[in-house]
């Protein structure tokens, strides 16, 4: 069983679309809403840009969890990108679960530009979910131990 000690601070890589979720995260900032510092963001123009293999790559690189966030259905700046993302991640998440990667580690959310508060909730949810399953070392790349 993975170690689940309480001071485990997970490292979460998040892919946010520029128009909704990144703006929502910015709004959380402008509103000074405090949330855990575990999430590190990569901005893309649209959640449709996120290749599900990025998730695999992040987990290999040492991330304990991955979050993909985009506009709510119907709100995509490019109309359809989030729908593609939804399909891709549904399948990828199921598949990783099938291999034994806990679903808590691969999350997806819809956060709009006005949902600074929701962003915080999402982060808290993701962080606590990842904490509950402990560090991801299943297929992390071997440290080079210099």
């Amino acid at each position: 069983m993975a170690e689940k000690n309480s001071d485990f601070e997970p490292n979460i890589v998040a892919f946010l679309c520029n128009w909704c979720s990144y703006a929502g995260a910015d709004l959380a900032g402008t509103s000074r809403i405090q949330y855990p510092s575990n999430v590190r963001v990569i901005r893309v123009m649209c959640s449709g840009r996120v290749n599900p293999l990025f998730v695999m790559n992040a987990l290999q690189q040492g991330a304990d969890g991955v979050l993909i966030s985009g506009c709510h259905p119907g709100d995509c700046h490019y109309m359809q990108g989030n729908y593609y993302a939804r399909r891709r991640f549904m399948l990828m998440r199921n598949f990783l679960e099938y291999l034994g990667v806990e679903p808590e580690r691969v999350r997806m959310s819809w956060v709009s530009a006005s949902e600074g508060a929701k962003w915080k909730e999402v982060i808290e949810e993701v962080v606590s979910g990842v904490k509950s399953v402990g560090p991801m070392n299943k297929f992390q790349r071997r440290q080079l131990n210099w």
Partner: protein
Amino acid sequence: MVDVEKLREIAREVVSREDVRQLIGYRQGTYGFRARPAFITSPEEVDQLIFSPACVNNLATYLTLEERLPVPRGQEPDLRKVAVMVKGCDSRALVQQMEEKAYERDRIVVLGIPCTGVVDMDKVEKRFPNVLSRGEIALEGDKFVLSFDGKREEVPKEELLADKCKRCRYPTPLVYDQLLDEEVSRFADDDYADVLALEKRSAEEKWAYWEEKFSRCIRCYSCRNVCPMCYCEDCVLDRLNPQWMRRSVDISETTAYHIARAYHLAGRCIQCGECQRVCPVEIPLMELNRKFYKDVEELYDYEPGTDAEAPPLLATFKVDDREDFIL
């Protein structure tokens, strides 16, 4: 059963055609019960052709594996048609290849074989090890009849049948120009029992299960090379820049390889089982493919390789696709 004489007759006619470059079929293998691909370019070679339950290869692979060497200046590329023999499952590869615009329908001539099932050569070899003479396998009723070294053995069909055949929904080819036999109706449906059983296990058990398998993988990429759907000019899994996964063989990179390969086949894999068949270290690749296959069918009511006009699964969506996993 396909009448071999009839097959040869049709094949002779096809290879004699001006507009056909070659016919890809099966011929006797070099030892044991093996059959292997045959590439026929002239009517004289047609008598090599066979069809039997030993003809396991999915020949659709050769349509996309075709080598297109630089055409010397002043010469024209040979764009004549290629004729290919396909079983039911193999025909789905053609459909999917066409969905993905690998070629136009009029580039190929399809000889469809309504398939009553092929053997799993591993099961055969386990049962009859070290058969050197060129043995033969035929299906008679519900028994496979194996003749070798002057002997004749009967085995219930069930015992030697390839697993993929046990759940084949399309034994009669979905696309063909000529059908070589009467249509065959589906044998059985897929109950995904193996996938469901694995799904139910704990994360730790699943990981341990796959780790054991993946740690055997020698990353020869044979499973990719043989796949009729894997025909990128330059596979991303091989690429150095960017390098999605390293060439070094360890559990991390190998797991990454298996995730990437299976994901790249999501909504595209047509269940021919070739990847698993060729794997020298017997990694149950079909259990990976079938997880996607099952999810894709359940979630999106989509079955790859059944409709050449369908939009590619991951290049389309429905507004009401499931999203209960989204926060």
